[in-house]
């Protein structure tokens, strides 16, 4: 493949062939106010070495080098990525693999996805997981649709205000033209979903109760009590985990009574890359297996009795079932799911809980230090994992701006998503934040130098 754009001469000849005068005519389908009325403002060609220098100097303007410290969570988490992940997924067998429809030539890809499904089941404490979805938000919306399929004739969804705000927006988009009512369940003063209100709102027409694990404010929800309530009225308990590492510290959602667990797998070996690509996961109980969206890999035996892997239950899918498919998703995040599999297998049964405890203890230390500062308080008393909310004495945006001067990205302002929290600031801590960074943040928040 040549990396050369078309010459003017070639463009003219192509336009002539299809009977068009101007290149712009090809874009008339795009509303005029969405079109750039001028050519892109790009400099001329550069030699490779100059080009590298140009991009290095541009990249240096990012707050991404080692001199910055950051405490940003909110759905994407800065965890260490072991070098072996990049090395393994750079094998062409993984990164050039196409959809594994043909088991005869796709055993490697199929087994990698099967391992992913197995690991997700172990993590979530559920029976069956699919081959992955695009990201946490769309996985959550797919799970809502799934709960509507499982709960025949039920048309209401109780959606905790603690669920990631972007997830809630995506759910609203998915159900906008369906006969479905989304009902928001407020949070209690301690940051947990209000159980009393859940009990009042649950009815025979509610398909699912959706809560976070932990919720967007870092708070660990009482999944078991909520699940009991949901089950008592025949609704599915749906748990959305933006930071699934928490499952390695706390009891798994499946153990606590969740029926469907979805989440974002970015924490497990994927870089932040400005918020994507991520990798969504969804797991469910055996009873709801046929309502799962997307691709599933199963283990079987070949004619000689040897273990092998195939795409299974494909009759749920769009290419077979047309408009009656469980979802219009017929794909998965192959390479990202493999990264997650490698990460989870590498850390293993002992490593993952250790890492989770490490995240928790760093967060607990920082939380305590900040709470002791004048002008800062902790609005929520409920248990947390590696993220927590601080109320500041001035707007969070001002605090953030001040700390940026000291090369600290101190967290996320909650003003837009949770205006009811006074000057709310969401702070996240992972194993990437060392003691010096934690103490530096405390000192900077207190008005001193980092």
């Amino acid at each position, binding site marked *: 493949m040549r990396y050369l754009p078309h010459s003017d001469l070639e463009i003219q000849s192509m336009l002539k062939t299809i009977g068009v005068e101007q290149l712009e005519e090809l874009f008339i389908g795009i509303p005029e106010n969405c079109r750039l009325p001028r050519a892109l403002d790009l400099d001329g060609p550069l030699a490779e070495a100059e080009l590298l220098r140009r991009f290095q100097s541009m990249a240096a303007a990012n707050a991404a080098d080692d001199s910055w410290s950051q405490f940003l969570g909110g759905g994407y988490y800065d965890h260490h990525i072991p070098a072996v992940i990049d090395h393994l997924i750079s094998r062409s067998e993984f990164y050039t693999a196409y959809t594994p429809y043909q088991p005869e030539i796709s055993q490697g890809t199929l087994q990698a996805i099967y391992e992913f499904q197995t690991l997700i089941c172990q993590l979530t404490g559920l029976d069956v997981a699919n081959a992955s979805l695009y990201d946490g938000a769309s996985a959550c919306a797919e799970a809502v649709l799934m709960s509507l399929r499982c709960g*025949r004739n039920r048309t209401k969804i109780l959606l905790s205000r603690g669920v990631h705000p972007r997830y809630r927006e995506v759910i609203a988009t998915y159900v906008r033209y369906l006969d479905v009512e989304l009902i928001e369940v407020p949070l209690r003063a301690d940051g947990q979903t209000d159980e009393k209100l859940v009990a009042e709102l649950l009815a025979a027409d509610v398909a699912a109760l959706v809560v976070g694990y932990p919720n967007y404010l870092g708070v660990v929800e009482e999944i078991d009590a909520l699940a009991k309530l949901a089950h008592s009225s025949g609704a599915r308990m749906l748990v959305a985990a933006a930071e699934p590492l928490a499952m390695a510290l706390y009891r798994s959602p499946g153990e606590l009574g969740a029926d469907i667990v979805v989440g974002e797998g970015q924490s497990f070996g994927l870089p932040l890359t400005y918020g994507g690509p991520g990798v969504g996961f969804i797991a469910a109980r055996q009873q709801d297996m*046929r309502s799962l969206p997307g691709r599933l890999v199963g283990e079987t035996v070949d004619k000689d009795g040897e273990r092998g892997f195939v795409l299974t239950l494909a*009759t749920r899918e769009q290419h*077979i*079932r047309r408009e*009656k498919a469980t979802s219009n998703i017929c794909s998965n995040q192959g390479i990202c799911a493999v990264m997650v599999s490698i990460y989870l297998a590498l850390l293993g049964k002992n490593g993952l809980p250790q890492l989770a405890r490490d995240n928790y203890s760093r967060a607990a230390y920082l939380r305590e230090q900040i709470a002791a500062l004048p002008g800062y308080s902790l609005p929520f008393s409920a248990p947390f994992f590696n993220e927590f909310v601080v109320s500041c004495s001035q707007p969070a945006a001002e605090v953030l701006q001040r700390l940026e001067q000291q090369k600290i990205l101190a967290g996320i302002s909650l003003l837009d998503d949770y205006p009811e929290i006074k000057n709310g600031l969401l702070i996240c801590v992972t194993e990437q934040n060392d003691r010096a960074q934690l103490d530096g943040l405390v000192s900077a928040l207190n008005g001193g130098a980092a």
Partner: protein
Amino acid sequence: MDFPEELKYTEEHEWVLLEGDLVSIGITDFAQDQLGDVVFVELPEVGDRVELGKAFGVVESVKAVSDIYAPLAGEVVEVNTELPDAPEMINTSPYEDGWMIRIKPDDPSELEELMDASDYQDFVEEE
């Protein structure tokens, strides 16, 4: 290929049996043979309504998924609860163990619109 005389048939390959004021419904021997091994059935619940010509359930085999259409309108009074766990009964015994639902028809005269065994046999041979 079996075409029991006492049954009525639809062009969608469902069979219908009138017993007293109730009607049993399933899919025909020809239909199960075309589908191949049935692995999953989705049926309505007791108390649901079925509408003439509208899908009331789904039958899934190793090679295809098909809707099952209601031969007449009515209310579901009984569902074969053994089928979900033993869907292969549709292959082994389509007219007996493989029955799907019993309904109380709104208008039993709708039965007269359906084919009898010999009409259905001709219909299948043309397929």
